[in-house]
């Protein structure tokens, strides 16, 4: 049912989205939206939106209440925003936080607007059947509620003329059962592009909690953006130290190894997965690799560049390497890639020094529009 309030509500929502956009950097740095991973909607705490007024500041004033208890009893905690315990004759002092719910699509849109991200042009189309909701087809059977009057009448007219019943002087046309035409839903083949993200991360000893947190936050926003472009999105995770293995999401962000680092192991595993599951003609492939830039040897780094050139880059829409700064990492891998792929279209490199840089890094990765 349409209510008049819906237009005012929509206006309010757009004001809220504006606020979210203004505060996007803060939300990203705090990372508290990431905790809601896996839900269809995210709840975003905003400062209450209100018009300023000349008002008493009641907070530190006594108020009246009613009920049991004796002097000195605690009635409720005074965290602002809960409005608990406070209030007088229907009045509710105290700062009220406003919790707004946005769908992931809305959030992605805000991210795109704020970072001025170009929309992605999907590559390779996997054709999938999907039904459109439109009643554009015609059938000879169906419910009476879907009778197509004009077509039915035409059919009846045609029948009466061809059978000679039609009398131009008394043009009475009565449709019979066989004349009835019904609207029907038409099945339409719609191309739907499929995409896969392969996340790779260095979990060797030099990657600490802080570095992983950065990766976790960044991955949330990357997922969000890509999900808004591809209905069919698969995400897989690879961790590596000296050897690589595929893991589930939880393990990916939590596991902690010691030991050395062979980046090529991850790249080799990724290329095997691509070969097996993601033929490039059908899939839009996104490869994200995060590490602190440490690698076992220069030979291995050279091997990585080879693997990328021969196997990863031809298959991928985008290969993104994010180098998270850590106290122990040498950061040597970044310049190697920078040198090897100075002008490569589908390679994005980014240095993420701290949480503040996540937003810029997302822009560097996704700003290519691939």
């Amino acid at each position, binding site marked *: *049912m349409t*209510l*008049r*309030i819906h*237009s*005012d*509500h*929509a*206006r*309010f*929502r757009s*004001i809220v989205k504006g606020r979210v956009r203004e505060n996007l950097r803060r939300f990203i740095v705090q990372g508290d939206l990431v905790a809601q991973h896996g839900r269809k909607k995210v709840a975003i705490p905003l400062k209450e*939106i209100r*018009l*300023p*007024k*000349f*008002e*008493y*500041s*009641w*907070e*530190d*004033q*006594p*108020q*009246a*209440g*009613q*009920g*049991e*208890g*004796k*002097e*000195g*009893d*605690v*009635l*409720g*905690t*005074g*965290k602002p925003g809960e409005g*608990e*315990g*406070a*209030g*007088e*004759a*229907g*009045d509710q002092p105290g700062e009220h936080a406003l919790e*707004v719910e946005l769908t992931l699509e809305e959030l992605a849109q805000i991210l795109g607007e704020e970072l001025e991200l170009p929309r992605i042009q999907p590559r390779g189309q996997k054709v999938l059947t999907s039904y459109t909701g439109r009643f554009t087809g015609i059938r000879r059977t169906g419910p009476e509620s879907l009778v197509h009057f004009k077509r039915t009448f035409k059919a009846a007219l045609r029948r009466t003329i061809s059978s000679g019943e039609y009398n131009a002087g008394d043009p009475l046309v009565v449709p019979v059962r066989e004349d009835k035409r019904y609207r029907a839903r038409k099945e339409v083949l719609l191309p739907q592009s499929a995409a896969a993200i392969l996340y790779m991360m260095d979990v060797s000893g030099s990657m600490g909690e802080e570095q992983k947190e950065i990766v976790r936050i960044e991955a949330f926003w990357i997922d969000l953006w890509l999900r808004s472009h591809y209905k069919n999105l698969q995400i897989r995770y690879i961790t590596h130290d000296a050897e690589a293995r595929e893991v589930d999401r939880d393990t990916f962000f939590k596991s902690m190894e010691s030991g050395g680092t062979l980046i090529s192991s991850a790249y080799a595993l990724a290329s095997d997965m691509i070969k097996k599951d993601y033929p490039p003609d059908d899939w839009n492939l996104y490869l994200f690799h995060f590490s602190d830039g440490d690698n076992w040897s220069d030979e291995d780094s050279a091997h990585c560049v080879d693997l990328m050139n021969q196997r990863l880059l031809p298959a991928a829409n985008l290969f993104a390497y994010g180098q998270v700064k850590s106290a122990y990492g040498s950061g040597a891998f970044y310049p190697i890639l920078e040198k090897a792929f100075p002008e490569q279209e589908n390679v994005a490199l980014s240095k993420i020094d701290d949480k503040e840089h996540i937003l810029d890094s997302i822009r560097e990765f996704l700003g290519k529009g691939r």
Partner: protein
Amino acid sequence: MRHPDAQALRRLSFIPFPEELVQVKREFMAYARKQGLDPGEIVFDFLSPSQISEAASYDGFPGRYPHWRFGMAFDQLDKSRSWGLSTIYEMVVNNQPAYAYLLEGSTPVVVRMVMAHVLGHCDFFRHNAFFLGTNRNMLNEMANHAARVKRYQNRHGFERVERFLDTCLSLENLVDPNLLFWRAREKESSGAPRDDAAKQAEPRFSSTYLTSYYRTARTPSAAAKERKAEPESPPLKAFPERPLRGVLDFLVDQAPLEDWERDILEIVREEAYYFLPQRLTKIMNEGWAVFWHTRIMVAKGLRPSELVEYSDENSKIIAAWPGRLNPYRLGYFLFEDIRDRWDKGRHGPEWETCQDRARRERWDTRERHGMEKVFEVRSAFDDAQLLDAFLTPEFVIKSRLFTFRLNPRQGAYVLESREFQKVKSTLLAHLTNGGEPVLEVVDANHANRSELLLRHLHDGVDLKVGEARQTLHALHHVWRRPVNLQTVFQGQPKTYTFDGSRDTEQ
């Protein structure tokens, strides 16, 4: 007779008002009139839950002007409704006829209870002194406001009009409750032709501002007395000659606005004065409605089998809310207390001075004026006056009233006191002037450069300084010259100024 807008409102609802409830309404009305109530004409209508949320977001007027804050109210109301945190059973619109929305799907007992409750509200709207001046054709008036705002949006741009509305709404609480009575008088006199002598006695001013000045100047108020005592009386030709409490009225008359802007400010003022009596009489109004729905239901509204359900529903209404004051409960029990005291003659000097506890407990002069008294109170008082006159130490003890405050060290609200004086003064502090600070226009030509000077009549509670500064920005947007606010902050006299680009304070 149906309201002209009834047709439009009818469209809201898909359920015709059932015949059996028409019968209930007739019976309730007859009974209520016999008891001395005068609810006037009421149109009942059922709304779906989300329609009720919509109506509540618009303060009962589905045709209000477009503004996002109604959308925000809806967001919160409808969310809390769909999560099952709150249910709005009823809304009444103070109009002639009154409109009452009932919640579709309520049980028959609840519907009847709400109808009885509504009779109480409608009687109150018609007979409480603070409501005498309200526009009884507000449904149409609001629709008219909406049409004007939409026209300005089309002509001057949606965002520009919205921004100006935001500005005006920041100032909407700067109204003068005393003017309610002048409005009532004006309404009365405009209705009936006045005799010539009365006409002669009224000074005639051409400017609307002077008329409102004239009204205020003759309004006896504590502020006026205080003003007389002030040594530095304003210099000659001060403007306004005496401080004016109706800041909003002053701005409508005097601010250098474009026509459409003045009209929007006027709309905001009209609506502020329409809602002001409801803000001032929340406890009275709800108390009166509960007082009567209990009586009507017990007398006319229940089959014996429904008694338990009714009692259950009723107890939800008058339950003590944890840590928050329930105006339904407080108002209802105060009215019952008044009735009881005036039935038993528990008032007057003899009662007040009687210290003998046993005698007080047995006290009954068989005066039996309780009902008369409650009707008198409903006609003449607002919340602050009600509590000032009728809150007794016995009542405070009996209804377990207390004061509480934030203890910053514990970060928690702590029960502070159950002492009568403390409870009473706390209640009054929150209810006087509807809980809003009192500001007045002191000088419209401050520093001889047409700056605006407002004064906050500080009564012990500071203003929120951050908010006040933001509000000064809004005020500047309307006045277009530097604006100043005199107040007291943390014991120090302060003047906050906004000159259009910079905030300063002295």
